[in-house]
């Protein structure tokens, strides 16, 4: 649970608070639980709410659409993959990653994935994690963070490009040279 909260909040103290709050809330509302859902699922839905509370508070004081230097670097890297006519340059054309299930079954893949995820710039990571970890629909993410849907789409696109390049370099290309 702590790791889950930490990945989402990127703040160890805030993550501990969220988990503690969630566990306390779960214990004091244990009667409500009454076996309707799996205990784990129920506690996680409480944790999810606590995490969202924290993100909401944060959104009031920070500008979620602000571009950091790291975000700008990612955008430049992405632009450099294309020729002037906006088609892929021969060297950067996305390759066939082969059987995805094969990768997902290897521990090393997850180590690389972990590094890639932690390398995302903070704002970009927050939007991506809300969408993919907390299962928000894009309009909900924008609403919580006070940004436009278009902005949200741009940020998600940036996050996905960064992750695919990171996996390409750290896993798929590395695996090839090793053979």
């Amino acid at each position, binding site marked *: 649970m702590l*790791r889950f909260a930490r990945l989402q909040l990127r703040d160890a103290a805030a993550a501990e608070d969220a988990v503690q709050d969630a566990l306390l809330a779960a214990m004091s509302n244990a009667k409500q639980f009454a076996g309707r859902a799996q205990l784990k699922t129920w506690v996680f839905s409480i944790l999810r709410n606590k995490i969202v509370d924290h993100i909401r508070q944060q959104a009031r004081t920070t500008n979620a659409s602000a571009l950091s230097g790291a975000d700008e670097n990612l955008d430049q890297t992405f632009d450099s993959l*294309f020729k002037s006519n906006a088609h892929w340059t021969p060297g950067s054309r996305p390759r066939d*990653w082969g059987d995805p299930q094969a*990768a*997902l079954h290897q521990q090393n893949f997850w180590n690389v994935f972990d590094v890639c995820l932690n390398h995302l710039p903070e704002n970009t990571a927050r939007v991506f994690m809300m969408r993919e970890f907390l299962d928000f*629909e894009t309009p909900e993410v924008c609403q919580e963070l006070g940004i436009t849907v278009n902005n949200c789409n741009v940020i998600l696109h940036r996050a996905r490009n960064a992750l695919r390049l990171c996996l390409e370099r750290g896993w798929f290309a590395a695996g090839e040279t090793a053979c």
Partner: protein
Amino acid sequence: MLNCKEITHLLSEAQDRQLPLSERLPVRLHLVLCQGCRNYGKQLDLLRAATRGYRDATRDEHTK
């Protein structure tokens, strides 16, 4: 005709919402002709599967 850069944006958005037919058709047409963007789309699918798998693993870690 859409270029590859535009296609990557639409493929990313297709992960989040159902694209309307007016966008789906040009994307499909482009993908028939462009191996790079086809692979890009498959890579996004793998990314989604990996993120879900990763999420479930971090959930299970301490609750077992």
